[in-house]
C-alpha cells in the first residue's frame, strides 16, 4: 500500500459529484477509515471510499447496519485513525445512539448526512432538510454539536475537511448536513495542492503513563490531549458519566455537572472560532434571507428578482448551522424590516431564527416538505411580504 505523503490528494480541477467531493475531501483531511452502510442518496460516498481508501493506505468496511457503522468509526478513531461515515435519514436515526457515545467519550470523527425527504423511508432519491433539529437534539441527553451545511459540491469538499479539523480541535463528532440535491449534483470542484490544505493533527499527551488522565483538561483549554489504544497509556473510556481518569462516576451529580457543562461549553463558548457565516448584500438590506445548504443557494434567484423590483434584500447563509449564530441574527434583526427563512422542511431552523431575533423583526417561514427545491416565486413572495409590499395571491 502507498506510504507516499499526500498520496491521497488528487490536486486539480474536476467535474465532480457532491458525494464524491465529500469522499475526496475526507481523504484530503487525512481520513483513513470509513465504516458505513449503503443508503440512497449517500451511497456514492461509500462506493467512492471503498475504491479510494485501499489505494491510499486506508481501511473501508461495510458494516451490518448504521448502529455498527457509527461504532466502528468510533473504534477506529480510538485506534488513532481519522474516521468517517456517511448516511441519510433512516441511517442517521440509527446513528443517533452512538453519536451520543462519541460525544460522551469525546471522540473525533465525522458523520455526513445526505438528507432526503422523510419521515421514515420517505423520499429516498429526493432532497430534504428535515434532519436539522435531529442533528441538534437527536441523541438523548444534553450536549452541544457542530453541524455544517454545504450548498455545492465544492463546498462539500471544503467543509468535509473543516469538519475533520473541528473534530480534532474540539474532540467531538462533527456533522456535515448536506442533502440529496447537493450530494447528487455535479459541478466544478477544485482540489488544491496538499500544502494549501490545513490539517489539524490529533493532539497526543506529553505526560508519561501513570500521570496522564484521559479527561483532565488543563486550565485555559477545553479538551484533553487524546491517547489512543496501543499508545501504552492503558486508558479507559466509557459512555457513562466519568471523572478525569475516565472512570465511571455515577453515584451523584458531582461529576455530571463539570462534564456536561464542559461538553457544552467547549462548543458554545467557542462560537467565534467555529461559526462561519456568509453575508451577501446585507449592508443596505431592508429584508434578510437567512438560510443554509441548498435552500440558501436557491434563494439567490428570487433575491435577484426582488432587487430588480427595488427591494433591498440580502442573504445570511449559515455555513455553520450548529452552534447557532444567535448574536449575528439578533444584530441583523435590529437592522431589517423582516427576515425570510426558506428551508426544505416544514419550519425547523426558522424557530431558532425567531428565538435569536427576539421579536425585533418579523420572521417569515418558507417551508417545503421535501422532494424538491423551492419555487423561486414562493421565496420572492415572502421577500415582498417582509418588505411590506403587496403580494398578489
Amino acid at each position, binding site marked *: 500500500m502507498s506510504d507516499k505523503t499526500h498520496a491521497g490528494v488528487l490536486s486539480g480541477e474536476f467535474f465532480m459529484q457532491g458525494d464524491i467531493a465529500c469522499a475526496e475531501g475526507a481523504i484530503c483531511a487525512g481520513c483513513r477509515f470509513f465504516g458505513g452502510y449503503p443508503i440512497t442518496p449517500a451511497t456514492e460516498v461509500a462506493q467512492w471510499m471503498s475504491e479510494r481508501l485501499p489505494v491510499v493506505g486506508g481501511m473501508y468496511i461495510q458494516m451490518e447496519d448504521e448502529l455498527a457503522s457509527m461504532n466502528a468509526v468510533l473504534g477506529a478513531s480510538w485506534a488513532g485513525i481519522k474516521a468517517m461515515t456517511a448516511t441519510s435519514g433512516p441511517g442517521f436515526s440509527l446513528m443517533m445512539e452512538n453519536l451520543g457515545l462519541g460525544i460522551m467519550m469525546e471522540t473525533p470523527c465525522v458523520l455526513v448526512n445526505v438528507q432526503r425527504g422523510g419521515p421514515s423511508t420517505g423520499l429516498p432519491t429526493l432532497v430534504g432538510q428535515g434532519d436539522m433539529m435531529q442533528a441538534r437534539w437527536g441523541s438523548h441527553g444534553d450536549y452541544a454539536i457542530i453541524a455544517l451545511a454545504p450548498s455545492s459540491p465544492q463546498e462539500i469538499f471544503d467543509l468535509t475537511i473543516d469538519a475533520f479539523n473541528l473534530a480534532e480541535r474540539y474532540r467531538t463528532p462533527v456533522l456535515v448536513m448536506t442533502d440529496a440535491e447537493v450530494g447528487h449534483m*455535479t459541478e466544478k470542484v477544485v482540489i488544491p495542492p496538499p500544502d494549501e490544505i490545513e490539517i489539524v493533527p490529533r493532539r497526543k499527551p506529553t505526560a508519561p503513563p501513570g500521570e496522564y488522565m484521559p479527561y483532565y483538561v488543563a486550565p485555559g483549554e477545553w479538551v484533553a490531549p487524546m491517547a489512543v489504544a496501543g499508545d501504552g497509556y492503558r486508558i479507559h473510556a466509557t459512555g457513562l458519566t466519568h471523572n478525569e481518569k475516565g472512570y465511571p462516576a455515577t453515584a451523584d451529580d458531582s461529576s455530571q455537572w463539570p462534564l456536561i457543562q464542559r461538553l457544552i461549553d467547549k462548543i458554545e463558548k467557542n462560537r467565534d472560532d467555529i461559526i462561519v457565516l456568509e453575508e451577501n448584500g446585507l449592508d443596505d438590506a431592508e429584508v434578510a434571507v437567512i438560510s443554509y445548504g441548498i435552500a440558501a443557494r436557491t434563494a439567490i434567484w428570487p433575491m435577484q428578482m426582488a432587487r430588480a423590483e427595488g427591494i433591498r434584500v440580502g442573504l445570511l447563509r449559515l455555513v455553520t448551522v450548529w452552534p447557532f449564530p444567535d448574536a449575528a441574527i439578533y444584530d441583523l434583526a435590529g437592522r431589517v424590516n423582516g427576515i425570510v427563512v426558506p428551508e426544505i422542511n416544514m419550519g425547523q431552523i426558522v424557530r431558532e431564527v425567531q428565538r435569536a431575533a427576539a421579536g425585533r423583526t418579523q420572521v417569515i417561514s418558507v417551508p417545503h416538505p421535501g422532494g424538491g427545491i423551492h419555487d423561486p416565486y414562493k421565496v420572492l413572495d415572502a421577500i415582498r411580504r417582509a418588505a411590506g409590499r403587496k403580494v398578489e395571491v
Partner: protein
Amino acid sequence: MNRLEIRLSGFGGQGIIRSGEIIGKAAVLYDGKFATFTQSYGPESRGGACAAQVAIADDPVELSYPHVIDPSVLVIMSQGGYNKYVPEFRRDGLLIVDSSLVELDEAAEGLKVLGIPATRLAEEMGRRIVANVVMLGFIAAVTHLTSPDALRNAVLSSVPKGTEALNEKAFEAGLAYGKEL
C-alpha cells in the same frame, strides 16, 4: 443571463446520465465555463425513464438555481422521454431525436427538429452502447453548448481505457452527420 440549459431523456442503460455529465465536464474542464449537472431517475437501474439536465454559464451565480427549468435544447432517445418532455418544450427550442427510436407526432409541431439515427449508426459500428456518444458528436455539431473539441476531450477522458478509439469513431460519426445537415 447567458445561462444555457439542455435536457437529455431516454431509458436507463442508454448512457443518458453519462452524456449529461460529459456535456457538463466539457463546459467546465475544456471550455473554462461553469456547469451544473443534475439527474433524475426512477428506482430501476435499467429500462426506467431517466433524464439528465445540464445548465451552463460563464458566472457561477447564474447556476444558483441548479435545476433546468426551460431548456433551449432537448435531446430525446426514447418514446417515453418524448411523451414526457416534448409537449411542454418551448416552441423556439431545438429538439434533437434519435430517429431510430423516436417517432414524431403533433407534439413536435412548430419545433425545430433535428434527427439522427444514433442507435442504428452505433449498431453499424458493432456496439449499440456507443449510441449516446454518436449523439454527443451530433450535439457538438448542431448546438453551441460546448465546442466540439471540448466535447470530444470530455468523451475521451470519460470512457473506459481501451475504448477510446471506438468512442472517438462514434463521436466523429455523429459530428459528421450533424455537419452534413
